[in-house]
């Protein structure tokens, strides 16, 4: 266990719900869930993961801290928003699932072989460097995520798709050299830094 993880576990001993409310984005809304099951039944990924949102929310209340934070369910969410659209209590389910994923990552509890977690990191690195997503570089880094050999194979297999994206201007070849960016890049980085600071400080403080 990382020190931070240990500290938070000790601090909130026996009250994981409170820990989620304090530290997870929109975590306070977990309290609104009435366990109707509509999100679980509406999720297109539903049959493919172990814990549906309904179950995750009940596990939070039942104090299943380790099982929740190590679950790969949050990483399976494709952000289709079906659950948010249908939830009778208007829980921001997608956001909470992502919030839990972020929190699990901060505490170093992401399942080691979780591919979506890897992709999420690639996406973040790509986006945060210039404030704009560079589709070309993101695609390439994704293909080579699991080593050079596999990367070449995937790239070859998707050649046609890549060309079509270029043709329909969904991807630009000049993105390979630098690529587009927000106007005030240093301002953008300062903003991210500040946000990270606030987040870190809050969680640090909550762990004491």
């Amino acid at each position, binding site marked *: 266990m990382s020190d931070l993880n240990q500290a938070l576990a000790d601090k909130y001993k026996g009250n994981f719900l409170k820990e989620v409310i304090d530290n997870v984005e929109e975590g306070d809304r977990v309290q609104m869930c009435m366990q*109707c099951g*509509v999100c679980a*039944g509406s999720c297109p990924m539903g049959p493919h993961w172990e814990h549906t949102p309904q179950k995750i929310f009940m596990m939070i209340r039942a104090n299943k801290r380790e099982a929740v934070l190590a679950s790969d369910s949050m990483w399976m969410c494709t952000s289709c928003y079906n659950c948010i659209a*249908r939830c009778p209590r208007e829980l921001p389910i997608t956001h909470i699932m992502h919030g839990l994923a972020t929190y699990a990552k901060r505490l170093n509890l992401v399942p080691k072989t979780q591919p979506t977690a890897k992709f999420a990191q690639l996406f973040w690195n790509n986006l945060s460097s210039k404030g704009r997503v560079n589709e070309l570089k993101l695609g390439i880094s994704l293909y080579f995520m699991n080593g050079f050999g596999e990367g070449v194979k995937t790239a070859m297999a998707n050649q046609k798709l890549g060309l079509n994206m270029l043709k329909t201007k969904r991807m630009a070849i000049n993105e390979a050299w630098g690529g587009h960016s927000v106007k005030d890049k240093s301002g953008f980085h300062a903003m991210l830094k500040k946000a990270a600071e606030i987040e870190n400080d809050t969680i640090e403080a909550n762990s004491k």
Partner: protein
Amino acid sequence: MSDIVATNETILVVGGGISGISAALEAAEAGKQVILVEKNAYIGGRVTQLHKYFPKLCHPTCGMEINQRRAKSNPNLTILTMAEVTDISGDKGDYSIKVKLKPRYVTNNCTACGQCTDAVEAEFDNEFNYGLNQRKGAYIAYNNAYPQTYVLDERIIGTDDATKAKDACPADAIDLEMQEESIDLKAGAVVWATGWRPFDANKIQPYGYDRFDNVITNVEFERMNDLMGPTGGKVTRPSDGAEPKKIAFIQCAGSRDRNYLKHCSRICCMASLKQTHYVRENITDGTSDIYYIDIRAIDRFEDFYQKVQEDDSVKFIKSKVAFITEGENNNPVLNGVDTEGYHRYANEYDLVVLAVGMEPSVNQGDFPVDIVLNEEGFIEMDEKNGGVFAAGCSSDALDVNRAVQSATASALRAVQVINQVGAVSPQNEGAK
């Protein structure tokens, strides 16, 4: 109609459902002048469309008959049907009211022989049966309708059917020259009892009421079980007319859902529990599966719920159904995950009944008078409403018992207003 006498000591009751009738009778029997304005061609409202009443499982008609008798024998009560209030101005103790009377084309001479019905040909969706069958252009809503006077549908006026009806009538009761009228009334207090309407099931997209024949609503199910209903009391599948065996009820269809109705409609749990009795009585080997979030058998009806739980033909599944698809033979398939064990299911049924909720029958912008409504559109008890008092389901989703209690309370409030008016009116001056 110009013979209606109304002063500021009159009580106006808007809506002639069980609540409006109760309020009107209470006030009239207390000696006040009452005018009851009902939009339909008959009084009784939605309860006349129910097969049986919970908790006693008796037929609503017997209760209605008593009320009809009380109404007939009370000279203080005037009932206007096919009438709607279009404007209310003034203040508590002194209201001026405009009422629009739609032509019925049939006079009080009608003996309810029904020969006009036989004579006409055109048919229309039968609104009394929620469109499950058709009725003729000359009709009476249902056998025991009060008043016992037929109606000509305005859509046949000017067609051959109208003259056929007139020629067939042995009592000379059909008057094709009748026109819409507007009358002015005075009243000191108003009881607003316009009731509820079923939530529009088409809005619940994942349940496919608009797409799947064998997905129906609880109000339609009431009509199907009624001997006088569209199927003569036989429960049938709309797709092929066959008798369904496996029936599912989906609770909170539209209620307790921030996408549709925020409130718990309070009645639908009891309505479905009641309807499992219909299944047992009317369908050999019929079974009922109830999908629910939690069962809310309003207070004293817990024993009713327990009895249904003991019934082998009824199963309870704790889950709000996520969506419905259609399987073979037009069988609806319910999809979701249950809360007791988190099992994913795809269960096939012969017929699915949506327990749709109740919403106020009058839309927020359509009140002819300033009135305070809550978030759900039900009338709030508020000083600002002056001498206008809500009764029954215009104030909340209620069962008959509570609707009548609320009506009695409103009648009392209205009577108090009239008593104050009476105390200061010129004709009582000498008496003091």
